[in-house]
């Protein structure tokens, strides 16, 4: 699994908590607690079906504030990768990856937007990458 080894450097100072916008509105969410639980190997809580990790807003404030270069957000992202391997992730993620594999892009092309592109004098949006992208997504790598 890529990334997320830096949790060993955490000395639980809490700088990440003070500037976490999710913590501000959901006090039960704390990057510091997620890191100590990772160190204790509390797998079920962290990557089980009801894990709080999906409430991370990916703002990188914890990454900026951490004096130990723990990169709490990257640890959380690694936990999310682990949850997907376990099948306890947000299934929406599979849709996104599938869509990129099939169309090369995440956002669906709609007639309304094609019309707006014409009104704005923009060329029709085209992608020519699907063969490559499908191959890369279907590669069996860990």
């Amino acid at each position: 699994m890529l990334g997320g080894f830096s949790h060993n450097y955490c000395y639980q100072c809490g700088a990440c908590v003070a500037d976490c916008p999710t913590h501000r509105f959901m006090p039960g969410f704390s990057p510091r607690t997620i890191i100590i639980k990772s160190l204790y190997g509390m797998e079920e809580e962290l990557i089980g079906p009801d894990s709080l990790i999906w409430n991370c807003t990916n703002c990188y404030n914890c990454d900026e504030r951490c004096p130990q270069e723990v990169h709490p957000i990257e640890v959380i992202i690694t936990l999310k990768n682990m949850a997907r391997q376990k099948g306890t992730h947000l299934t929406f993620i599979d849709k996104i990856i599938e869509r990129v594999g099939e169309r090369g892009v995440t956002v669906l092309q709609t007639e309304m937007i094609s019309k707006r592109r014409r009104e704005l004098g923009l060329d029709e949006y085209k992608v020519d990458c699907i063969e490559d992208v499908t191959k890369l997504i279907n590669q069996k790598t860990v």
Partner: protein
Amino acid sequence: MIPLKYPQMERAVRYVMEKLDIELVDDPRYSCCPDPIYFKAGDRLTWMTLAARNISLAEEKGLDIITVCSGCTATLCEVNHELKSDNELREKVNGNLKEIGRQFKGSVKVRHLVTMLRDEVGVEKIAASVTHPLEGLRVAIHYGCHLLKPSAVMKVEDPLQPVILGQLIAATGATPVEHHEYLMCCGKACDTADLTLNMSYAVFDSVERSEADCLGLICPTCFDSFDVGQLRVSRQFAHEFRIPVIYYFQLLAIAQGASPEEVGIPYHKIMSDTLLEKLGAVPVA
């Protein structure tokens, strides 16, 4: 996301680049960056591989990459930085790219367009390109998270005291407004809707108190939260916000002579007569 959801932003960027006499090279071989939230949360290595493929297309042409979306900036800057600095990781990703006959070399730069303009064109030259200064317009700044952080990767400036957007807004003749929550996250990536709404509410409340005419930003995902999302926040908190949200390059294009229609202002959900007047448009009845 921009070409397929907010083409008015693409229109504005193309308008601005033409006025500044900078040539854009499009390449249909690009895929999605892909997004730095969901795709990365699902499979970090494949996410890196697809981003490295995109960067390798620019390397082939010997051109730097500019991004006009903060999400694209997050993915492409991070992957470019990681693969340039970590040999083992680069070999792993290049092993994957071999299957399609491509390779990441690490020979180009990736920057958000605002950073490229500041560094290569300069704020003075941008100000000099303005023919219709937006005098009297107060623009509340919203930085969004992925232009400046992580600062060790982005290397734009101190994410706790940024000035880049203020300088660029001032270049249009408008007045930048640093309201209380100008560094707040839009909340779009949280899984719980209440969190997203609370974070957005914090921003709207702060912008409203600042008495700005609009909220200016550089990210289509923040735009999503704040334009369409504003109706939901107003319902949730029983407080009707009417804060128009404008993408920075729409402001600059209008200051360079574009009409608000030309850069798609009528497609925005939230608009105000005061703003349209200040942008020089005929107010809607």
